[in-house]
Structure formats: structure tokens, C-alpha cells
């Protein structure tokens, strides 16, 4: 899902809004898994970046076999009991879908368990309450584990894009200025999900031609870059590029540095191993 040069509109499932996105790729968001098939039928496969579905738990998800090949991204609050997911496990293993959870201690454990069962998982590092120590431990499992297991995002992304200085793992979360533009049901366009929720729009889809997307993205990045001039926070964190210095304005609450150090060390080792066919 590397989309460095594309402009992707992140839109709710709304025929009118979708109609205004022209031939651009779209990431369609929904809170209703029941809409997945209709979304897939509404948007051509070559335009569909992904369908992002917010729901409660993996255990409560009725995953359909017809969804197997769809580029689905589930944002779930929790995994729930493994026993509840067992009947669907074979389907989940074969699906292209990835299941993201907030990085709470319970969900980090669930990501490890599901990964070991060959289900593709991811953790949301943008939320508060992330357990960085547990994440660091999971990185060790993911990068050093000798038994086949499924990838965990954003670890896989960081390993794969280790040598790419433009890489920002927030791309996985549909949050990368210059690539993703968030739209609401009224057709308002913003640079991020947070900006959209806060009403900080850069224009509307009706008048998309009037928006200087590059300039707006650059300006937002520049604004976030300003704190990097101080010798603290993101400026002294090795992971500042990979995380896109998202917490530059509030470094005191970030706490990611040891985790990012471990993640990048793991990425370096994974790449070295690959270079030496280990």
C-alpha cells in the first residue's frame, strides 16, 4: 500500500461524495461491516485503495468469505476471546484483510497471539495509553521469532521501508500529508482525520481544482517541523522520520523513543539478515 505519489481521498461511504472524487483512488470508511460488499461493488477495484471498517471486536466480527480478496483494514477496539474467533480463523488467515487495534497491553498480547496463528494484525501507535515496553517486546518476537508468523504493522512497514527516507508509517493509518486527504459527507477536505474532525478544511471536493494540495501539505509539514529545531523531543529520537514526527508539539507525552530505537534496531537487523540471506 505504498502510495507516495498518489492522491488518495479518504471518504465516508456516500455515493455523492464518491462521485466527486473523480478518478482518484479512494479509501472508504465505514462503521458498518454490513456495508463492505456494497462498497466493493460501488468502487472499481483499481480505484479502491482500501475499505477501512471501524468495529468493536474481532471476536464479534462475522467475516464473510466473499471479503477474502478485498483490501480491508479493520480498526477494532479489541480482539476479544480467542475461542470466539476460532470458527472464523481459517477464513481470517486466508484473507487480505489486516486487523488493527489500539496499542493497549491486552491488544498487544492479542496481536502476538493472532500473528502466531497467521492472522495479519496491526497496532495503532497514535492513541494514548500505548504500552511501549510491551510493544518493544513484541518487536523482538516479530523480528527474532524463528517460527513462521504473520506480520504485525507498523513493524513490517518499518522493516520494508528502512532505507526509504520518505517513508512514514502513518501511511498505514491513512495519515500522510501529500498522499491522503480526508473528506466528510459534505465534501469538505482536510489534511488529516483530526483536522477534518476539528473543521480545519483546505477546501471542498466541489472545488477541488482550486485547492493547491501540495502547498497545503507542505505548509502543514513545515508547521510540525518547527519544534525539531530545538535539541529535544523528536530531534533526539531516532524514529522521528518513520513516525513522521507526529508528536513534535507534545514531546513530553510521547514516550516512544526507546520503542522506536528498538524498532529501528530490529529493522536494521532484518535488513542485514535479508542482505545476507539469513
Amino acid at each position, binding site marked *: 500500500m505504498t502510495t507516495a505519489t498518489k492522491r488518495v481521498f479518504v471518504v465516508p461511504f456516500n455515493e455523492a461524495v464518491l462521485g466527486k472524487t473523480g478518478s482518484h483512488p479512494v479509501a472508504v470508511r465505514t462503521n458498518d461491516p454490513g456495508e463492505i460488499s456494497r462498497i466493493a461493488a460501488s468502487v472499481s477495484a483499481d480505484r479502491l485503495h482500501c475499505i477501512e471498517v471501524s468495529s468493536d471486536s474481532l471476536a464479534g466480527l462475522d467475516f464473510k468469505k466473499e471479503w477474502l480478496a478485498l483490501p480491508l483494514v479493520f480498526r477494532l477496539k479489541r480482539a476479544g*476471546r480467542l475461542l470466539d474467533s*476460532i470458527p472464523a480463523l481459517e477464513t481470517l488467515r486466508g484473507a487480505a484483510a489486516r486487523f488493527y487495534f489500539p496499542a493497549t497491553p491486552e491488544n498487544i498480547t492479542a496481536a502476538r497471539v493472532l500473528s502466531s496463528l497467521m492472522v495479519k494484525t496491526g497496532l495503532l501507535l497514535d492513541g494514548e495509553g500505548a504500552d511501549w515496553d510491551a510493544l518493544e517486546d513484541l518487536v523482538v518476537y516479530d523480528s527474532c521469532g524463528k517460527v513462521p508468523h504473520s506480520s504485525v504493522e507498523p513493524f513490517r512497514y518499518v522493516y520494508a521501508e528502512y532505507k526509504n527516507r520518505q517513508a512514514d508509517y502513518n501511511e498505514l493509518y491513512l495519515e500522510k500529508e501529500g498522499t491522503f486527504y480526508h473528506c466528510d459527507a459534505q465534501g469538505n477536505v482536510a489534511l488529516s482525520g483530526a483536522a477534518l474532525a476539528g473543521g480545519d478544511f483546505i477546501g471542498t471536493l466541489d472545488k477541488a481544482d482550486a485547492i493547491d494540495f501540495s502547498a497545503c501539505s507542505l505548509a502543514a509539514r513545515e508547521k510540525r517541523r518547527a519544534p525539531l529545531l530545538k535539541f529535544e523531543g523528536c530531534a533526539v529520537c531516532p524514529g522521528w522520520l518513520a513516525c513522521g514526527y507526529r508528536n513534535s508539539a507534545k514531546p513530553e507525552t510521547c514516550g516512544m523513543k526507546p520503542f522506536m530505537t528498538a524498532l529501528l534496531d530490529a529493522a536494521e537487523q532484518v535488513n542485514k539478515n535479508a542482505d545476507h540471506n539469513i
Partner: protein
Amino acid sequence: MRRGGRSAAAARRNRGRQDEEKHNMPNILLTQKCVRSCPYCFAKKQMNDGDSGEIIKWEDMVYLADLFSRGGCREMRFLGGEPTLHPAFADFLAYSLTRGFSVTVFSSGIMSDKVKEDLRRVYKTVPQADKNVSFLCNLNDPELSPPAENKRVEEFLEEFGAWVMPGFNIYRKDFSLDFLFRYINRYGLRRSIRLGLTHPILGESNSFIAIPEMQGIVDRLLGYLPQFNQQDVVPGLDCGFPMCLFSDSQLGQLYKATKGSQRFTCGVPLDIGPDMTAWGCFPLSATHRKSVYEFDDYNQMTEYFTTFAQDIRKEAGGIYEKCDACTWRKKGMCDGGCAAHMLREIAKEGGVRAFKI
């Protein structure tokens, strides 16, 4: 090139040992809590010394599944305490089965309705669960157990009997096996009985069968052989019975009754506690414990603890003096009884020999 008799015999012996080691299933203590307090309990040391609230965590379960997989081991046993008391017991079971393991649960059969409901779901929803999950229920004589306990055990056997192999730990001379035959027939349990001899646990004061009492135990046990044969039930004598307790005629009878499967050697079972320390067999749990994380794979662990058990046997041939010169021990057909008895004797002699081990 023809190999010499001695080395060929040694090779056969080693091959036999390796085959046995391959069958050493790792025992994972999911929790130290138990619903019973059996006087002979082989996990007593572990349960007394450890933190009773300590349980195996999910991270550890994944780690162990990976560790065993790498060593080619596809079987594991869940022990306790009472393993069904672990809050994630059924999920662990489903997980292990999905990872391709077959699991034997060592349980008292005393469990809550919720656990039983979870078990039903495991059997119903996990592919091949009916083939790959079994229970070894260590049953106590109902005459010597509280009625409420008996009731719950029987409720479990009533529903899950088809997956249950009964086990009985012999800790007193006047034991009876009659109730086991009754249970097998009434509840449709598997037609074999694991018969364990209770052993001393170093550093603990548990009830066990002392060496001079063993002959009496064997004689009483063999008295049940006609019943075993008549009812088509296979006795399975667990480790620690020296072969010389049986006459040639009795060995012949035992061969028939056990369908030739009876062994008198020690398989060194590998036990792993909730704190992720490992040891080779419960009676030896006070010595040579190691963190699981010190091993790269399951084979390495097995090798370490097997070597430890062999070192004990180098210092003491067996539980009897005569074991030192025993032909059958030299031929690898008998290990001279349980190493726990030997270690107990060695420990009495002060630090010199114990230090060597």
C-alpha cells in the same frame, strides 16, 4: 563392515532411549492453584514454593508453542494445580490445537460449569479437537474423598468420559482399584489406567511409597491383572517401578496385559512452571531448575535434563545396591527405580556426591 556386538548393543540402547525421549511430552503448569489437597501430590513442592496466584501468561504460551514447534514436538500436557482453573484454559486449549498440537489435560475433573461450557465449545468448534484433546483424570478413591468432590468428578466423567483416561496414584499399601473399573464401565472412559507410584519430593514431606513397601504394592497390583484382562482394560505402570519387583512369570503376565508396552525406564518428563522455569520431573523439582529462556529449543531442554538424570544414575545405579551390577539395567531395560529415591539417599550423605550432580 560388521559392527561389534558391544557397540551394536549400545547403539540399539541409545536408539531406544532416543525414541523414548521423542515421546517425552512437555508438561506445562498453567497454574499452581488446585481444588484438592492430595497427600501424595507430586506438584506439592512447586505449589508450596511458588506464588499461588502465578499463572502462565499468553506471551509465555506463544513462546512455548514456538519452542516446542522448533524441536519438532507436536504434543503437550496441561498440568497444575488444576489447569482448568486458569482463566484462559479453554483459549489456551483452542490455541494449542490450532497451532497443531495435541493436548492432554491432567485434571481432577472438578471444574466449574463455565469451564465445562467452554470445553463443549472447544470440542464443537476447533477442528480435530475430538481427536487431539484428551484428559488424564487422576482419580482418588471415592471412599476416601468428600461426597461433594465425588459428585462433581462423576458429573465431569458423565459428559466427557469418552475423552478421559483414568489415572490413579498409589500412595498407600491398602489401595483399591475397583472404583476405577466401575467408572470405566459406567462412564465409558478409555480402557486403560495410568498407575503411578508416588515418590518422595526432595525438600517436601509428601506421602509416598517407601522402597521396602514397593514389593507389597506390586503384589497387590498384580492381583488385579485378571480383572484388567477380563474387563479388557490395559494397565499402564508409570515410571519408577524397578523391573526386579516382578518375577519372570509376572513380567510375562504384565507383557500380555499391557500389550507389550510396559517399560521400566525413566523418560525424564519435562515440566515447565508458570514462572517459566523448567525442571526434569516433579520429584526432582527442587534441583536443577533452569529458565526456559536459556534454551534454544525443546531438544536442547530435553538433553539437558536427561543428562542430569543420567548423572544421578551414574552416582547411584538404582534404588537398590544390587542395581549397580544388574544386567538388565546395563542392557537399558530398567533404570533402577525413580531417581528421586536415589537423590534422596545421595543428599543424606552430605555435599560430596551431591556436588558432582
